[in-house]
Each structure stands twice: as C-alpha cells, then as structure tokens.
C-alpha cells in the first residue's frame, strides 16, 4: 500500500530533520557556533589524525630493561641479606642472562641461606579479595649450593601492568606540563601505551618528553682511582663507570645514589647570570633538603655527579654546604633542552624504559590537502551518480537523488552525534556508500519496471516493486554489514575509520533508500495520479 500513517510520516520527517540539524554545525566556524541558542546541536565531526594532522605513538614497556633493573635491585638485596650477622659466605652473586645466581660457600649454612633467600621473593599483593599472593621471583635450588632467582610469569605480568599504569600517570603529567596539545593516552593490551595527539604535526618534542625515562640520581665521585685506571683494571666494589653526556668521558661514581629525583619538589628553567646560558634550578622536598645539606657538609671540595638516565650531565665540585635545599644543573643546555629537563623533573621518572614500536604522524599541510581532495572527489562522484540516476530513471531518479542527499546528511549527522572519527578511508567509505546506496533504489526501480511489463497497474507495480526488492536489499546489506563489523573489531586506525562509516552508511541507506524514498514516491503518486509510470 502507498498509504502512510500520519505518525509514520512525522517520524520519517523527524529523522531527516534531526540528521540535517546534527550535520549543520559542520558548516560553521567554532566562533559562530558559540552564538547559537543552546537547544541547537553544536558538536562538529571529529577529524582523524590523517585529516587534521597529528601524531599516533604506540609505546611498549621495555620488559628486558625492566627485568635488568629489578635484577640489579635483587642483587643488592641478596648481598645485604647474606652479609647480615651471622654472615654467610657466598661467591658469584650476579645477573646471569634471565636470572640472578648466587653460590653459597659453606654447605653447613645452606638451610639458613635458603631461608634468607626465600625472604627476597617479593610477594606482590594481588589486591583482589586479598586471597592469593603471587611472588615476583621464584627460587630454584640447583644443588651444590647454587641458587637461582627467576621471574614468575604471573609476577612479571603484574609488575608490567603496574609499570604501565604508573607510566600513563607520568606521561599525563608530563604532557600536561607541555600544555600545548591534549593527547589521549590509553593502555593497550598488557604492556603497551597508545598516545594520540591531534594537531601535533611534529611529534619530536612529544617523543622527547614521553620517551625519556628521566631517572635523576646524585652520586659522589669516587677519587680512590682515576676513571681510566678503573677501566683498565676493574672498578672497586660498590662503584660504577658512567659516561658524560656531552664529552663521553668516563666518571667513576659510587654505585648507591645519595639522592634521587623522587626527592625533588620543583624544577624550573633559569638563566645563569654570568654566562647567560639556560640552567635548571631544582628544589628538594624537606627530607631531601636535609639529606642534601648533610651530604654537602661532609663532602666539601669533593666533586659529585648529577646522573640522568645513566649519563652524567654535570659533575660540579661542592664548594660549601648547601642547606637551602635547592641547587642548579648547568650542562650547556639549549633553551628547549633545559625546558624539557625541567618538565621531566617536575613530572617524575618513568618506572621503566618505553620504546616506540609504531609511529604515524601527518603534517597539517597534508591533512588539509586530503580534506580538499576528499571534498572534490565526493562532489564529482555524487554529481556523476546523480546525473546517471536522472538519465536512467527520470522522475524516480530525482526522488532517489533526494533520498541520497538525505542519506549523506544522515551519515554525517550520525558520525557527528556519535563523535566518531572521520578518516580519509572513511571518506572513501562514504563515497562507496553513495555508489552502493543507489543500489537499493536501482533494485526497486528495476523491479517496478518488470512489474509494469508484466501488466500490473501503476499502484500495484510500485507496491510490488518495493515489497519484493525488500528481501534482496536486506540480504545484500546484511552481508556487507558482516564484513564491516569484522573490519571494525579487528582493524585498527584507518581501517576502523573506514568500517565505522561503512556501517553507519548501511543503516542510513536502508532507511533513506527504502523508507524515505517510498514516502517520496507515494507522495508524488498521490499528487499526480498517473496511469502509467514514467520509468
């Protein structure tokens, strides 16, 4: 039947109107939108990084580096535990590949040693219902006094999860300090972090800020032996060799840091009054300040080193006790370098090294070009389809074009309302939808032509055309929908954007090409009442 109930007509028109209203803000600038009354929608479509320019950075926690870090700490703890009174003799304590080994010399003390080593397994609280605790390490007795620590799978997983959590916090603080962009920072999988920064065309600064571990430590310089001597023989126990960031010269430093970045309260950029070079001023918190005062008092005229991520950035000599709790790092910085360091020190250190494993960035120029060419392609494509439809189906072609226009408006309306991201493949998806949306109308019109040839009257031909084509249209669109769904769930980035527009397009197509166009055709028919159809 060509009759439409009033409420149906109202509903159809309402949907189209809503689509137009939701799409409208995209044609105005943000400032114009401000002045609109509140009941009108003001949201604009979200452009993907490929269209507005921006950076996509996928980080992964360097689990090897993290393991080594934890192992070094474990070695220290084991040493301390075995040296406690009564001392237990041991040899060969150190990191061996994926494990920490130690050999107990005195066979009689093995049980005592095992007890002490077992205390180092580091139980982690799972937190959920407090029930199960998982040990970070497991201890294997290899016989003959040899003990080996390795990570437990669960323990490592949990540790990495925690690292990711903390890293996200630190990254967020750092990026907030920058204040220029508002990137989204998300966990991905177990040990990955995705940072998306729209509008950031040159991600280098962002990468500098995010990628650096920024572990700051203060060490006393060991002057019992020159660094070159230490390199030739072996550095004395409890010391290490660290190279300078600028000159690559070796420094011999105490292994245990005097103070760490955790005890910092603030850091800021300033300029040295004599050299006019940028420097970083820092201030310790109360506990740190007290420690710093003690250390500097005891070590006047000795050099100490400021180490950032295993590189010495400066090694000044302590001229007088520093009791105020503040100091200065000068290391021939550029202004940006000093600025970055200050940001990093304020935001804190990453718990482990992060590696970029995927990076995509698009400059604003290319994004603008892509939008421009996407627009032109859409106009040309739509015009070609519109002309073809009118040439082939006449008045009916005009009606299907009106439905097509409603369709595209609805796609943009839905994308805007859902705040889905429009990408370049997404535009391709829309253009493809335009091509395929007319398919539904083609199916219906061809069916009407057939029914007319079979000798039906105009009304019953239209009716039969819509009814019989319906099943086919549904089958065809559901199969495409299945493909789009799979794309959406498995795809990433550009593929996902394509899938979203394709899916939205399928729904709006079924509405506009079936319901809306039938409404148009029936309205037209009731006005004209033709005995034969011009199709």
């Amino acid at each position, binding site marked *: 039947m060509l009759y439409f109930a009033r409420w149906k007509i109202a509903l159809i028109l309402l949907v189209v109107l809503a689509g137009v209203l939701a799409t409208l803000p995209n044609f105005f600038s943000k400032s114009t939108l401000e002045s609109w009354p509140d009941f009108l929608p003001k949201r604009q479509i979200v452009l993907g990084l490929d269209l507005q320019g921006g950076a996509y950075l996928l980080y992964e926690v360097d689990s090897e580096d993290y393991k080594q870090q934890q192992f070094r700490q474990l070695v220290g703890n084991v040493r301390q535990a075995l040296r406690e009174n009564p001392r237990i003799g041991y040899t060969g304590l150190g990191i061996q590949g994926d494990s920490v080994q130690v050999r107990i010399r005195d066979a009689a003390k093995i049980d005592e040693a095992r007890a002490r080593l077992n205390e180092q397994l580091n139980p982690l609280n799972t937190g959920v219902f407090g029930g199960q605790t998982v040990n970070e390490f497991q201890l294997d007795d290899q016989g003959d006094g040899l003990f080996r620590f390795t990570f437990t799978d669960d323990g490592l997983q949990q540790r990495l999860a925690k690292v990711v959590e903390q890293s996200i916090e630190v990254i967020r603080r750092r990026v907030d300090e920058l204040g220029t962009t508002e990137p989204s920072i998300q966990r991905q999988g177990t040990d990955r972090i995705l940072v998306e920064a729209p509008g950031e065309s040159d991600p280098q600064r962002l990468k500098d800020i995010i990628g650096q571990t920024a572990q700051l430590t203060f060490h006393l310089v060991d002057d019992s032996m020159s660094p070159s001597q230490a390199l030739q023989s072996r550095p004395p126990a409890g010391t290490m060799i660290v190279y300078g960031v600028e000159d690559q010269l070796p420094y011999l430093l105490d292994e245990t840091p005097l103070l760490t970045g955790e005890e910092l309260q603030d850091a800021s950029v300033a300029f040295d009054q004599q050299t006019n070079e940028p420097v970083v001023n820092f201030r310790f918190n109360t506990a740190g300040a007290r420690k710093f005062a003690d250390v500097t008092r005891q070590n006047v005229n000795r050099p100490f080193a400021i180490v950032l991520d295993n590189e010495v950035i400066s090694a000044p000599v302590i001229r007088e006790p520093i009791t105020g709790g503040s100091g200065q790092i000068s290391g021939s910085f550029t202004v940006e370098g000093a600025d970055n360091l200050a940001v990093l020190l304020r935001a804190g250190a990453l718990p482990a090294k992060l590696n970029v494993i995927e990076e995509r960035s698009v400059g604003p120029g290319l994004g603008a070009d*892509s939008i421009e060419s996407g627009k032109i392609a859409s106009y040309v494509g739509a015009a070609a389809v519109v002309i073809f439809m009118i040439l082939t189906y006449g008045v009916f072609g005009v009606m299907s074009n009106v439905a097509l226009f409603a369709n595209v408006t609805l796609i943009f309306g839905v994308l805007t309302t859902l705040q889905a991201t429009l990408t370049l493949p997404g535009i391709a998806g829309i253009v493809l939808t335009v091509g395929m949306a007319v398919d539904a109308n083609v199916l219906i019109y061809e069916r009407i032509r057939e029914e007319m040839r079979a000798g039906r009257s105009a009304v019953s031909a239209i009716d039969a055309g819509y009814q019989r084509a319906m099943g086919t249209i549904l089958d065809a669109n559901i199969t495409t929908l299945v493909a789009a769904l799979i794309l959406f769930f498995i795809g990433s980035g550009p593929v996902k954007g394509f899938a979203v527009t394709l899916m939205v397009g399928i729904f709006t197509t079924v509405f506009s090409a079936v319901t809306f166009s039938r409404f148009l055709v029936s309205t037209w028919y009731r006005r004209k009442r033709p005995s034969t159809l011009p199709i």
Partner: protein
Amino acid sequence: MKLLRLVPDKTNLRFMSWRRVSYPFTAFVAIASIALFLTVGLNYGIDFKGGSLIEIKTTDGPANIGEIRGKLGDLNLGDIQVQEFGSPEEVLIRIEHQGDADADQQEVLTNVRQALGENVEFRRTEIVGPRVSGELAQAGIMAVGGALVLILFYIWIRFEWHFAVGAILTTLNDIIVTIGLFSLLQLDFTLSSIAAVLTILGYSLNDTVVVYDRVRENLRRYKKLPLDELLDRSINETLARTVNTSLTTLLALFALYIFGGEVIQSFVLAMIFGVVIGTYSSVFLACPFLIMLKLRPSAFRKEEDDNKAIQA
C-alpha cells in the same frame, strides 16, 4: 524524455552455455593469480613488513629524486625506495626496517631529517616496528577469514547450502584474483589494502546474493523449467540492476581515483578492480557453480511437498 536503458528490456543472453569459455578462462586467471602470488609475491607495505615511510614536500621548487636518493644512500640504511608522489614537489621515501631494536627505527628518522636539511616539509611519517607488523598481518588474515566464515553462515541460514558454497567459491575467486592483481602491479599491500579486499568481498557477495535471490524466487515460480534455462532467466532479469549498480559505484570510485589524492589511490584502484571482477563473477561464476553443485529445482519441490504433507 526518453530514459536511458543500458540493458534492453528483452535481453536474453545464454550465459549458461558460455560457461565452456568462462570456466577455463576463470580457472586460468585464478591459477595465474596464485602463481603470481607465490613467485613474485605481494609488495608488502611497512604495515606488514616493518620499516619507515616518509612523505616529504620540497619548499624550494621540484624535488630532485636522484639527489635525495644519493643523500639517503650515504646513511647506509639498506634498501631505500624514493619515488615521486602526486606532484613534482612531493616525494615518498620507504626505508626497510633496521636491526632488531625499536630504537634503531627511531634513529632513522633523526638521520633522514639531518640528511635532507632545510626546505623540506615532512608531511607524513610512519614507522612500524617488526613485532607490530607481524601482529597487524595476523589480524588482517583473521579479518578476511572471519568475515568469510560469518557470511557463509548467514547465507547458509537464508538459502540452501548450495548457495552458501557457491557464494563463498565466487567470493574466494574474487579475493584470489585481487591478490593476483596486487602481485602483478606490485601495488603497496597495506592495512588499507585489507580494507579494500574486505570491501570487495562485501560488494561481490552483495552482487551474488541479488542474483541468488532471484534464482530462489524463480525456482518457486517455474517448477518445470530446466535448471540452466532458469539460471539464464534469473541472470537476465537482474542484469539491468547488476549493470546499473556497478556503473554508479564505478562512477563514484573513479571520482575518488582521479580527485581523491595519492594517499588513497592504490586503495581505490583495488576497489575499482574488485567491483569489475565482482560483477563478472556474479554473472559468469555464481550461477554456473549452482549447476556444478547439483542444485535441482526438485530439491525445492520436495521441500514444498514436505510442507504440504505436514500441513495436511
């Protein structure tokens, strides 16, 4: 106004009798595609192979490709491809992935920036580590496989199993030939290409389903008609629709190909090809497959008799 009819009303082409030609031809193309895939292989983009892709635009006149190649060659980065991309100022640089560590990839970018110096706008950079590329490849294969299985299932529910198998065979053929085209033309095979393949899959199925729908309808209507005549009739009845829809889709795609910019050109090219092959296969393959799979009108008649028996 006289309306355009690309397919005249009384068209009655004998598609079924052409299968003596179309079968061997299709088989040849499919086998050639597989052979091409196995010998020449796909030109995997960085999404699946790892490595870096950098698009630059020179700000001081047309780019000198040779000079850029020379400057980058000095960096010892292994296999480097430099090509013009869209306009004389725009250049696309591909660099194979470096070493095993992710940090090595990052250094590449810094070095390239230094080597190319000023007067260069970095329009796009993509760096994909080897592990991520492996995962992306796996996800891509899963996407295509999963989609095929789900669609098979859907058609099975909606039609007889013959149709489901016929549709999957048709679609598989389309995918194989598309992969063959990618191998032949050495188009960049990236994540977007997977999207293109899946779209082709959807489009080809769409076409096939429309024809099958008509076959099913005619099976009920003309119970005495021999199967090959019935299939011919179904294809001819839907031919106008098949041609018109393919044309409108192609019109839209050609607009994208010509005006849509370099970035999506290979994506669109694949889809144009897919629409053509999808249309071909739904006319020349989908229905002959039904004969091969021994679909008989009797199968439907029996079903209806059973229904009557149950009602009685």
